[in-house]
Every structure is written in C-alpha cells, then in structure tokens.
C-alpha cells in the first residue's frame, strides 16, 4: 500500500511517500500502526482533528475501511483558492 504525506505532515515525517505492508482494516488502525513506529509518526499523528485522509484520491474518514485501497494520503486541511 502506498502512503503519501503532504505539507507539514510530509515535513514532520520526513518523506513524501512510502510503501508499507499492513493488515490494518481501517484508516484508524493504520494510523495506530504508524504511530507505534517512531516518534516522528507519533508527533505527526498526535492530533487527528488537524488531519485529513484521502483513499485512492478521494477524501475519506478515519473510520473508513481499507479494503481494496491502494493509496492512502494524509495531509492538513486544504488551503486552495
């Protein structure tokens, strides 16, 4: 599964993209796994209300299932326009 990070999430974790093997069934479980890895993940994911998630390039929720998902992206609230 491809995990992408944008904006300050990318900066805190220190990379824009990584491939991971996971058995997580939901976004929340995936976040739990990532947080357990290293402090930089723990810091980046410490406040989920400050984060948004997209599954296969569609905005989604932290409860959403990961079944069939190939690309997960984490980023702060968007500031377009």
């Amino acid at each position, binding site marked *: 599964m491809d995990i992408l990070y944008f904006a300050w999430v990318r900066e805190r974790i220190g990379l824009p993209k990584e491939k991971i093997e996971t058995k997580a069934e939901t976004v929340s479980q995936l976040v739990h796994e990532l947080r357990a890895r290293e402090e930089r993940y723990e810091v980046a994911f410490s406040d989920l209300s400050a984060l948004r998630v*997209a599954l296969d*390039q569609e905005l989604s929720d932290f409860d959403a299932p990961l079944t069939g998902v190939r690309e997960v992206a984490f980023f702060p609230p*968007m500031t377009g326009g």
Partner: protein
Amino acid sequence: MKISVQKEPFDLGAEANAFADGDMSNGAIVTFTGVVRDLAHGDLDVMEIEHYPGMTEKALNKIASEAQERWSLGDVLVIHRHGRLAPGDQIMMVATASPHRKDAFEAAEFLMDYLKSRAPFWKKEFTGKSADWVAAKDEDEVALNRW
C-alpha cells in the same frame, strides 16, 4: 469544461477572452481571480503551493461537474497554479457562463468555496525570517454550509 493545474503563470485577459468567445449563447460571464497577497505581516517573499497530483485534477473536475449539475451553466473554467509564487502573482481563476447572472455568480462562488477547502492544495508562506504553512480558516469551512 477546462480544468488546468499548472506551474506556469496564466494570462487572465487571454483566458477571459477565450472563455467568452467559446460561449456566445450565454449572456452572463463571471470570472474570479485570486492574487497572492501579503496581508499578515507585510514581509512575504514567496508563497509555495504544494498539491496532490492526480487527486487535484479529480477534485477540480468533480467540483466543476457538480456546479454544472446545480446551476444552468454553459462552460466552466478552473485554473490553479502550484509551485513558487510571489506577491502580486495570480494563483488561480474560475470562470462561469450562464443565461442568468444569478446562476453565473452563484456557481463561481460555489467553485471558490469548494476550491478553498476541498481541493488538495496547501500554501506555505516564506518571509525573511520564517516559513509557515497557511492554516485553514474556520470561515472557509463555514462557507460550505451555504451549498
């Protein structure tokens, strides 16, 4: 419908004329153009806009299609830049054409409200002494409740 996510500057005038010429049957044409401004501290050097290639185009297409479903519209144009911009540079524009001025205005406002907080762009402001990600504004989230 023309959607463009690009690093290069665009020419507002040329885009507006091309848009208007392409849609002669609609009496009302609205454009919105966003310009990099330096409201916060007066010392902005550069604004860097990051985006999510692939998702950005999808999100813009979805927003524009939804506008076309909700209002009586002719053509719709969305251009959004990414990369490094300086104060005074044009960041983005939208254009709408409709038989009715109310539809053209509302659809353009809808596009802007959704672009602000539902299209995957993130702005970082660089000044002489700092580099900060622009925080999303509550009022931009609230603006979506209108639609």
